[in-house]
């Protein structure tokens, strides 16, 4: 019996394992190998460069700027995505009849094709044809070009990112809110914490702690991987002010075909993601103990 089960188990796992070798493990090993060579797509001769690419990354102005831009983007999106999501969730959670209406509206950007919606945003932000500039003109700020001003472009992308992400977080927070037992609020009310602020500080916020941590990290990872809006709206410009990690990686790997260098960059990206994921795993672990 147990032998038969072991046999079936191995048979069921083998195809998935083969896929894993072909699509994950194998490519990762190739990537590591590439990152220490000067390989360029189509090149005839390949030379070992050791850790040269990694050293170069820390000298590379473009990469450094991309790193700064990415972190700045995360910093711009994160507070709004987390606290905005929480605030909306709190308000929506309290609604009864209109709850699903708001849920739908706020979630809409999450489901929609970002490339298409980015195109819509581009049109909305068009300096002469878009409604946003019309509003700006009415406010006495005529001529503000949100996507083509180096000091504003990244912030504008961040606003679009926020627009897209906040509904996702709202749903996560709503799930967290419904998991809080009613009794706790009733107990808190009996204990004298009946007011809205007391209820929030004594019950809601502490019990949402794990959800909040989780949302923070998922939002960080999502913001970290910003690519679509950059590729569609700014192509890294103006003046490189919106070049982000993934966009630079895409350029190096698939436009300039500096494969070895891009491989090293990918490894650095993976390192960031692993750190974030480890954080996330720790948070999920904590959740388990919490429950």
């Amino acid at each position, binding site marked *: 019996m147990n032998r038969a*089960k*072991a046999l*079936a*188990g*191995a048979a*069921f*796992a083998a*195809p*998935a*394992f083969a*896929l*894993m070798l072909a699509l994950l493990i194998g*490519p990762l090993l*190739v*990537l590591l190998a590439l990152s220490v060579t000067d390989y360029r*797509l189509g090149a005839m001769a390949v030379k070992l460069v050791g850790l040269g690419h990694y050293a170069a990354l820390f000298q590379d102005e473009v990469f450094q700027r991309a790193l700064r831009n990415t972190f700045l983007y995360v910093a711009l999106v994160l507070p709004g995505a987390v606290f905005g999501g929480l605030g909306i969730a709190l308000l929506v959670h309290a*609604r009864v009849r209109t709850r*699903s209406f*708001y*849920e*739908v*509206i*706020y*979630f*809409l950007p999450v*489901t*929609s*094709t*970002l*490339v*298409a*919606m980015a*195109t*819509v*945003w581009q*049109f*909305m932000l068009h300096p002469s*044809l878009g409604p946003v500039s019309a509003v700006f003109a009415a406010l006495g700020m005529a001529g503000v070009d949100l996507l083509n001003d180096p000091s504003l472009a990244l912030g504008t992308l961040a606003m679009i990112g926020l*627009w897209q992400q906040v509904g*996702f977080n709202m*749903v*996560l927070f709503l*799930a967290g809110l419904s*998991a809080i037992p009613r009794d706790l609020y009733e107990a808190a009310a009996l204990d004298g914490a009946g007011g809205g602020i007391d209820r929030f500080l004594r019950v809601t916020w502490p019990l949402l702690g794990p*959800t909040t941590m*989780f949302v923070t990290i*998922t939002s960080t990872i999502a913001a970290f*991987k910003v*690519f*679509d809006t950059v*590729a*569609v709206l700014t192509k890294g410009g103006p003046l490189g002010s919106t070049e982000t990690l993934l966009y630079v*990686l895409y350029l190096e790997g*698939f436009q300039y075909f500096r*494969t070895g260098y*891009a*491989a090293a960059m*990918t490894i650095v990206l993976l390192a960031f*993601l692993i750190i974030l994921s480890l954080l*996330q795993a720790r948070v999920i672990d904590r959740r388990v103990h919490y429950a």
Partner: protein
Amino acid sequence: MRRRGLLGALLSHAVLLAGAVLMAAPFLWMLLTSIRPPEEVFGTVFNLIPTRFAGYENYRVALVESNLPRALLNGAIVCLGILAVQLLFAIPSAYALAKLKFRGREWLFGLVLFGLCVPIQVPALPLYLGLAQAGLLDSFFALMAPFFLTVFGMFLFRQFFRSYPDEVLDAARLDGMGEFEIVWRLAAPAALPAIAAFSIFSIVAHWNDLYWPLIVVTSAERSVPSLAILAFRDSETGGNYGALMAAAAITTAPLIIGFFAARRAFLRGITMTGPR
């Protein structure tokens, strides 16, 4: 008390409505522009509601004078192809991870956990080289292959199967079912909610994906929705904002309609990466 409650409700509605307008504005703008005639798009006079319905010509341009229908069809093929292979591989392996003891199980699960933090951008470079080597770039296979493996699906289904009662499995074995039949006749039907949620997650992710198609697709024949929008915008018709918005609306429509039709499943599917 009641007065304060009423005031609070009004206030919260005001905030929520203001936010909702911001969230919905691009969609409204997209729809309104998609039926707006060119003279109003470029005109000096601004009317929120178009004075002349130009939806027919805008949508006709989007659908007939562009590559969009082809791209939509390709998108559907790619999404369904990916999903079918994902389920075919992920369900049995997840069942094995959850319910069968075999050598290397802990290792495999460790790899699954590791795979969870590796996005497509990481193996993209070697996969691209491999596909180029094999002469498979710009093919359906190239579009789909990297996503055949879904560690997320394996993880999700494993969690689901773990809570499946062992006694039912034993009863099935006693009734004469082999493990193959247990997977497809018992475990998979029981996991239907998870499969539905995962399917939505997968379809949404791949319908909207830009990074990988941008890398492997070079011809219009293999274009997918996200690429088609880009191409449309950059082509000479790109100045035709009415048609461009119509194209954007068409591209977004399938998922949004799906969302309205199966709201709960969508919320669960897309936020599945969340805590629960």
